[in-house]
C-alpha cells in the first residue's frame, strides 16, 4: 500500500500493465518524454522504452484510428486524448468503428482499446477545457464509459478497462486529480493524503466494471453521482442534513441498475447529480430508469442537479458548476414533497 493521489494511482495502473503485458502500449499528445500535461504518464517512457509510451501527432481521430488498428491486430493500446473537450475529431472513429467492429465482423475483429481523457470543470478552463461529454458516449451501444472518483478506484478501474476486451472511454475528473474537491471553492485545497481511498496497492488489482459503490448509506433519499460530483454530493448531503444514500456509479456503461433500483425502492426518492448540461444529459437516462422501475415506490419526482444548458463559461465558473448548495436545495425539495 502507498498513499497516492489520482495522478499517481493512474500512473501506477499504467506502469503495472506495461510491466505485466507486452501487448500494452501508450500513446497520445505529449505523453512520452514529457509525461503528459497532467503527468499521468510521467517516467513511463524512461522506464518501459520509447516504443511503449510515445508522443502522437495532434490528430485525435488519427490517435483513435491507429489504436483501433493495433487493437484489431491484438495489442491493447491505451491512448490519451489530452482534454475530453478535444475528443470530438475522434468521435466518428469511436462511434462508427470502435463501437461496432465486433458486431459487424461477428467477432473476427475487435477493438480492445482504452481511451483515457481528463474531463470536467472547476479549474477555470473555459469552454474548451471543462466539458463533461459522457452522455455522448453512453448513448453509443458498444462503448463502455468509466469515471472514477478516488485514487483507489482510478487504478482498479483503469486496469479493468485495459483488460477489457471491448473499447472503454475512461474519463478522469481532473478537478480531483490532486484532492477530493467538494465544490466549496472558497476553502483551502484538500489533498488526497487523509482520504481512506488514497491507500492504493502498488501491485495489480482490478475493480469490475459495472459495479457501483455505496459511498454513504441512508434511508430517505438516493443520490446518484460519479466523478467529482461524488464529493460535491457528500457536501450537499451534509449541508441539507438529510439521511441520504449516496451511490457512486463508477461506470455509466455498464450501469449497475440493480444497485440503483434497490436503493430507490428503499428510499423512495432520487436526486441525480452531474456536471454536464442538464438537457439530454446522462441524468435523463437515470431518471427514466428510476421512473420505469421504481414508480410505485417513489414519494417525489426525481430531481436533476446539473450544469446549465449553456457552454461552460470562464468568468462564471462557480455560477455554472453545480455545487453543494444546489445539491442541498434539490434534496430539500424532494424531502418536502
Amino acid at each position, binding site marked *: 500500500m502507498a498513499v497516492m493521489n489520482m495522478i499517481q494511482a493512474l500512473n501506477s495502473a499504467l506502469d503495472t500493465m506495461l510491466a505485466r503485458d507486452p*501487448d500494452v502500449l501508450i500513446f497520445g499528445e505529449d505523453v*512520452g518524454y514529457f509525461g503528459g500535461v497532467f503527468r499521468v504518464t510521467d517516467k513511463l517512457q524512461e522506464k518501459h522504452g520509447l516504443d511503449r509510451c510515445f508522443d502522437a501527432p*495532434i490528430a485525435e481521430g*488519427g490517435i483513435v484510428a491507429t489504436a483501433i488498428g493495433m487493437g484489431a491486430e491484438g495489442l491493447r493500446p491505451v491512448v490519451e486524448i489530452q482534454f475530453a473537450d478535444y475528443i470530438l475529431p475522434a468521435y466518428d472513429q469511436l462511434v462508427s468503428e470502435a463501437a461496432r467492429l465486433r458486431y459487424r465482423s461477428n467477432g473476427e475483429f475487435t477493438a480492445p482499446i482504452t481511451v483515457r481523457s481528463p474531463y470536467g470543470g472547476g479549474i477555470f*478552463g473555459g469552454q474548451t477545457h471543462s466539458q463533461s461529454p459522457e452522455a455522448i458516449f453512453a448513448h453509443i451501444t458498444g462503448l463502455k464509459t468509466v469515471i472514477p472518483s478516488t485514487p483507489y478506484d482510478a487504478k482498479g478501474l483503469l486496469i479493468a478497462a485495459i483488460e477489457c476486451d471491448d473499447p472503454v472511454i475512461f474519463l478522469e475528473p481532473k478537478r480531483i486529480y490532486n484532492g477530493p474537491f467538494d465544490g466549496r471553492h472558497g476553502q483551502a485545497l484538500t489533498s488526497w493524503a487523509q482520504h481512506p481511498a488514497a491507500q492504493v496497492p502498488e501491485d495489480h488489482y482490478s475493480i469490475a466494471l459495472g459495479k457501483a459503490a455505496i459511498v454513504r448509506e441512508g434511508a430517505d433519499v438516493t443520490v446518484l453521482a460519479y466523478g467529482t460530483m461524488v464529493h460535491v454530493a457528500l457536501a450537499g448531503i451534509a449541508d441539507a442534513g438529510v439521511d441520504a444514500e449516496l451511490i457512486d456509479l463508477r461506470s455509466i456503461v455498464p450501469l449497475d441498475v440493480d444497485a440503483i433500483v434497490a436503493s430507490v425502492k428503499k428510499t423512495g426518492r432520487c436526486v441525480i447529480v452531474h456536471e454536464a448540461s442538464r438537457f439530454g444529459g446522462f441524468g435523463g437516462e437515470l431518471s427514466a430508469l428510476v421512473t420505469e422501475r421504481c414508480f410505485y415506490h417513489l414519494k417525489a419526482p426525481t430531481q436533476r442537479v446539473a450544469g446549465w444548458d449553456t457552454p461552460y*463559461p470562464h468568468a*462564471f465558473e462557480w455560477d455554472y458548476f453545480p455545487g453543494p448548495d444546489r445539491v442541498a436545495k434539490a434534496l430539500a425539495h424532494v424531502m418536502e414533497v
Partner: protein
Amino acid sequence: MTNDRRSGRLRVPEPSSRPGDPVEFGDLALSPAGAVARPDIDAPEPCLRDLPFLLIRTLDDAGNVVGGWLPDLADGDLIRALKAMVLTRAFDERMFKIQRQGKTSFYMKSRGEEALGAVPSLALRQGDMCFPTYRLVSWLMARDYPLEDLVNQIFSNAQDPLKGRQLPILYSARDYGFYSLSGNVGSRFGHAVGWAMAKAYRGIDDIAIGYIGEGTTAEGDFHEALTFASVYRAPVVLCVTNNQWAISTFSGIAGAQETTFAAKAIAYGIPGLRVDGNDVLAVWAATQWAAARARSGLGATLIEFFTYRAEGHSTSDDPGKYRPSDEASKWPLGDPVERLKQHLIALGEWDDSRHAALEESVAEAVRAAVKQGEAVGTLGQSKPSVKEMFEGVFKEPDWRVLEQRGEVGI
C-alpha cells in the same frame, strides 16, 4: 503469433537534443539569404515545386536586404511593424507576470513569432479577415486594438468585450479583421477557406488568411481545408507557423523529418512557400505575393513560416522539462525584433535611443492598460452580470435558459 519484443521495429522519432544535452538542431535546410528567386505570381504551380524545400530570406546577417523577395512598402511601414512587435512583447511579459500573480487563469506568449501577426496585419487590407492561432495577438497590436479591451478580456471582468464567456487570450475582434479564437486547434482553418469562397461568390476581392501550427497539420482540418482551397481556387493564404514545438512535442512527430510543411502544398496542386518567419521583410514579401495571387483569382498559397517558439507553450508548462533551456538563444535565424531593429539602423532610420524610447512608451501604454483593467477588477474580483452566462446561446433564448435564469434568480 510471436511476441518477442526484442525484435521490435517500431520507429518513434526523437528530437536531436533534450534537457542537459548540448543544443543540436539537426538539418534545418536553411538557404542563404537572398538565394531563392521570386517567381511571377502567375507562374504555373508545377514550376514552383522547388520552393517548399528552400527557405525564403531577405535580410542577411548584417541586416541588409538581398535577393528578389522584396516587399512593396509604404513610408513608415517597417517602423509600424517594429512598434507592434515591441508592444506585443512588452504586453506578453506583463500579462504573463499577472497570471503568475494569480490575477487571471491562463496566458500564452508569442515571443519569437511577433512578425507573423504584425506583418500580415499591415500587409493585408482592412477588408481581409485573419483566422488566427492563439499566438497572433501581434495582428491586433498592428491595428491599434485597444489594450484595455485585451486586459479586460484576460481578466474576464465586467468590461470584458466577450462577457466573461471565453478563456483569456481567445479574443474575437471582427472590426479588426480578427476571427473568433477557440481552444481547439485547427478547427478554423477551413473557416478561412469558406470565408474566402464567400468573397469570391460575391465578386469581392477581399481575401482571407488562415493560420495553423505545425503540430496541427496532423489534424484532418488542415488537409480538408487545403483540398477545398485547391478545388475551388479560394482566395486564401494558408499559413503554417512552424515554431518547432507543440507543447512538449517536437516537429518531427508532425512529420518534419520526412519533408517540409510547405511541401504539403504539392499534393494539393497549390504553391508552397517556406519562409524565414523571423525575417520581417521576407514575411512581408511572401504575404504580398500570396495575397496578390489570391486577389487576382489565381487561388490559394500555403506558406510555412519557419520560426521558433522562444517561450513555453503557455503558463501551464515548463519548457525546461523537455528541451535544452538555451535552445531559443541558439536559434540560427535570430530574433525577429532584433533583426528588424538591425535593418532599420542599417538603413539609418533607427537608432538605440529611439528604440529605448519606443520600449519606454510601450511599457507605459501597457502599464496604463493594466491599471485600468485592475481598477475594473481582475479575475474573480469583477465579472459581467451573471445573466450574460445565459445570453448568446441562441439568438433568442429558449425555455431552458429562461427557466434556469429563474433558478439562479436573475
